[in-house]
């Protein structure tokens, strides 16, 4: 599965795509099947919003105990917040979705950008 992410221009907040909107919490993000053309379409829409978000890109997502998690460690940190300050960032909200990311194991790729090679 995939999700679309970016940083919001005005405040740098990590945001995720959900049905035409940018939202702040990964667990509520829209998850696209790997072969779903809607993912690329959402990416194009996101890239066409330069005054709203910076650097939209797709990430790989896997099932995790009780929910979903980004594949890569870096993207998990973006979805949670820094590990040295557990009360800072999105993880502070707690809940099952956050627990699922925390419980996810087996990172598989350094950046989680599904199209990393093409981007470079």
């Amino acid at each position, binding site marked *: 599965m995939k999700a679309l992410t970016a940083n919001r221009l*005005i405040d740098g*907040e*990590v945001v995720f795509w959900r049905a035409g909107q940018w939202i702040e919490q990964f667990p509520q993000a829209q998850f696209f099947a790997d072969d779903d053309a809607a993912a690329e379409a959402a990416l194009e829409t996101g890239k066409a919003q330069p*005054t709203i978000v910076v650097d939209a890109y797709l990430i790989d997502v896997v099932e995790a105990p009780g929910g979903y998690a980004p594949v890569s*460690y870096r993207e998990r940190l973006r979805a949670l917040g820094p590990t040295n300050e557990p009360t800072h960032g999105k993880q502070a909200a707690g809940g099952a979705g956050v627990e699922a990311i925390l419980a996810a194991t087996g990172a598989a790729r350094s950046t989680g950008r599904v199209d990393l090679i093409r981007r470079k």
Partner: protein
Amino acid sequence: MYRYDAIDREFLADRADEFRGQVARRLAGELTEDQFKPLRLMNGLYLQLHAYMLRVAVPYGSMDSRQLRRMAHIARTWDKGYGHFTTRQNLQFHWIKLGDAPDILDALADVDLHAIQTSGNCIRNVTADPYAGATAEEIDDPRIWSEVIRQWSTLHPEFSFLPRKFKFAVTASAKDRTAARVHDIGLVLRRARDGALGFEVIVGGGQGRTPYVGPTIREHLPVGALLGYLQAILRVYNRHGRRDNIYKARIKILVAALGAEEFARQVEEEWAKIDTAAADLPDTELARIRGAFAPLNFETLPARSETFEAAKRASPALARFARNNVKPHKKPGYAIVEISLKAPGATPGDASAEQMEVIADLAERFGLDDIRVTHEQNLVLPHVKLDDLPVVHAALAAAELATPNINLISDIIACPGLDYCALANARAIPIAQDIARRFEDADRAEMIGELKIKISGCINACGHHHVGNIGILGVDKKGEEFYQISLGGSGQEDATLAKILGPAMPADQVPEAVDALVETYLAARQGEERFLDTFRRLGMAPFKEAVYADVH
């Protein structure tokens, strides 16, 4: 300390005003992100993992209580109540909003602070000896020359779009607390045999992907000739430094490619053509700047303080603090006090707004209103009376700022790493925390003695791992964080690059490996040897054996 006048203040106001306009144009879509990025970077604003990060310049690591209080105010108002002191003596805020940045720059300018040239391919904030003006070792005050360079390099018309970033370090002591030999230019003040003051000019040191200890290209540059000579170096670099590959663009690559002799020859050739009368600072201005750093009004005191001696006898905690964090001052009856930002389990270099205010108060009441930042991510009160040390220590202890571990194994440098930084491959902070906890026993730490651990979360080496006695580099191994240990580095006057110990290991094995290295050292050390001395005597083999013996 140097006081800004109307000219400096109007300059900062103009700069903040310019950036406010640029932010407005970006938000309105008149500037693309590609166009805006270099502009915000020139004002220290990065987009990191979770938010924007603002890197505020602490000019040559020196500020007063009013400025530190303003940092606390910014931390509380626009961030999450803390700031992070960096290996370049700056202060970073990690949770900044782009929309707030113009107001923050105004708030900084209001107390003569700014974020100018804390990023970008320009001349960055100068690193200087944090003991400047306080240590008896120095032969001149490096802040004078750092201020000269600050003014000269600020929006320099010719050298603001260099091939890559450019970092200066200035020191005037035999003991180097600036890592001068791993800077783009290191300037070490020296006296010639005839007493004339000059600089040893070291060019092309650096860390990152390709570390070098910089060669000396001139043994003695008369101090008055500094700016003309720097113009020659920077011009050679600006014209001939590589721009085709970001990893080969630093001046160290140019110096290494040409060879130090040929590089020096090109600099001298360029220098000979420069109108140095126009390029060098007039003596009157030099004298004005020197006057700003005139010796302070120290009281005449006995060298020994009975108050302090009695308090040490009564308090083992104070005695330990004195052994490790209190350094000799040039004036009898005074001391240099280092404030460790490395409490066990804390994030190296972080200070809360409340802690900043405590330190600002202490500086104002007991420290001649002077505060320094060290490149090892600690703070310094450079001028404290011995008589006042018990009170200062108690106030620091109450704010969890009295960790007595300067230069010991838990005084660890760590970059923000993957917890914050968009460039990182692995986390650095948790590794530092784990090691510090493992060596929390203060007696054992003192028994181990000086041991500098430096941790970077990626090859860019902001955590100075190349010059750590034990250097730790975070790498990405198929999506997992791994750590590569190297040994034997030093960023001091005996600068040496660390050598890789062996294959990288997962995070949970790092503290154990450090323990094995320490045990090997303790078993083998002779007399007063530090870890680094023992390593230099024995070489890699016994350490490698100790860490990897069980792995097979």
